[in-house]
């Protein structure tokens, strides 16, 4: 569904992303990990077509992001690092506007807005002005916006930032329930979230891919030395693997 090949982004001397290549199959949830400044957000912005890459290519559903941007944009829901909210509008007016520019037909617009508002639990504050909402509420409106028009691909940049523990679990359940129908790339710093939701893990560090495997596969590769009686050592946790790979 998503094919990223030899993606490079450089800003003058700084190489933010260096030769990143990976694939995401249809219906898969990919956990996208890396320390701050590793190039996660930059990569996601290039997948969605916000940022043109210095070289390399991205294909979404078989369409090149650069050559057929409209086809790609019709299939993508994107929650950026900062939720793109118009603080002077009410939640409902905002979601209605996003539904309209995403091409949802007038007849379905209201029901579509209600659907994503229920999914993300925005119902209680749907008539309030976005500027007066808390960070967690804004984050949920941002997520609702990404889900509008039922896109095949979801690119979520730290979707659970600013949420309280109960809401984190809700959002996690929501993302899990979207798997299968939707292809999801999820970036986060919360490693248990990856363990709970993602089938595959991609770790990047300093702009390079350092791991791309299933969680079990990663644990197998990074398992400790064999114990005295010949059994494999205890499986390392994702934290341990992450620290080992990104500290180098």
């Amino acid at each position, binding site marked *: 569904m998503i094919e990223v090949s030899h993606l490079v982004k450089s800003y003058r001397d700084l190489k933010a992303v260096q030769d990143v290549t990976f694939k995401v199959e249809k219906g898969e949830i990919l956990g996208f990990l890396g320390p701050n400044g590793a190039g996660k957000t930059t990569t996601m912005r290039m997948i969605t077509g*916000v940022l*043109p890459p210095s070289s390399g290519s991205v294909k979404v559903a078989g369409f090149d992001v650069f050559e057929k941007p409209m086809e790609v944009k019709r299939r993508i829901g994107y929650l950026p690092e*900062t939720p793109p909210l*118009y*603080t002077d509008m009410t939640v409902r007016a905002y979601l209605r506007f996003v539904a309209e*520019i995403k091409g949802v037909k007038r007849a379905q617009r209201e029901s579509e807005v209600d659907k994503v508002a229920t999914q993300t639990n925005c119902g209680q504050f749907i008539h309030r*002005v976005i500027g007066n909402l808390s960070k967690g509420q804004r984050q949920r409106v941002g997520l609702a916006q990404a889900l509008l028009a039922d896109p095949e691909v979801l690119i979520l940049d730290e979707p659970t930032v600013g949420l309280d523990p109960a809401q984190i679990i809700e959002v996690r359940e929501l993302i899990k329930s979207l798997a299968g129908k939707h292809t999801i790339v999820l970036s986060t710093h919360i490693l248990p979230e990856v363990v709970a939701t993602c089938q595959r893990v991609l770790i990047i560090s300093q702009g390079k891919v350092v791991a791309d495997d299933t969680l079990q596969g990663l644990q197998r590769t990074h398992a400790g030395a064999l114990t005295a009686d010949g059994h494999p050592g205890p499986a390392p946790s994702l934290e341990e693997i992450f620290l080992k790979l990104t500290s180098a």
Partner: protein
Amino acid sequence: MSNAIAIAKKELNIYFATPIAYVMFTLFVVIGSYFFLRLLGAYEQASLAYMRFQSPEMMNRLNFQDAIFRNLFGNLGVILIFIIPFLTMRLVAEEKRQKTIELLYTTPVTPGEIVLGKYLACLAILVIALALTLTYPLLVQFNAGDQNGVEWRSVLLGYGGLFLMGAAYMAIGLFISSLTESQVVAALITFVVLLMTWIIGWTAGEAEGWVRDFVTYLASVSHLDSFSKGTVDLKDIVYFVSIIVLGLFATNRAVEAHRWS
């Protein structure tokens, strides 16, 4: 096109959800009314004076169009220079600062639709502001009776000229807003540019020959005046329309280029 209308509706929603539109209408009408009352007072004085001197030719020459509306339109045009920078400053700069432009970049909307939508929204504000000032000719019409009423053709042409000039100013403001993330910078630069198109006309008096013609052509207010006199000249229409087209085209490029920066 439907995307452009969606964006225009969103911009209008924000204009009316914040005090911007209301403040703009209030200021425009308050200052406009002040000028209108002054001009009306001057007209009254003149007609009284002519009556006292029993001078029918002078009386015949005194008319509402030349005495009131031509000057009024000139004044309203100058007020637009002061108000339009504050209307257009947020259009693109705010989207860049709040990062909401990423939403527009990742939805199936073209830069051209973004620019057109935003432009249509501020034109709608301009039309409403101008419509509010229609009270002045209507007031004159009701009090003057039929025989000596308002020349509606000339008045409406004047409004057409004001609309074209405002539209040209807004295209300039929209472009400048697309160059920066700071609304204050956008407003200041727009204001200076618009002011220049007005005061450059003052230097025309000192020049002569082709320089004089050229400077007069550059000054926006001189093009407005030929509309308020009740005449239509192709060169005035070309002047405003070319500024609008150029402004929108440049904004389109700037919105597209922002992603590459």
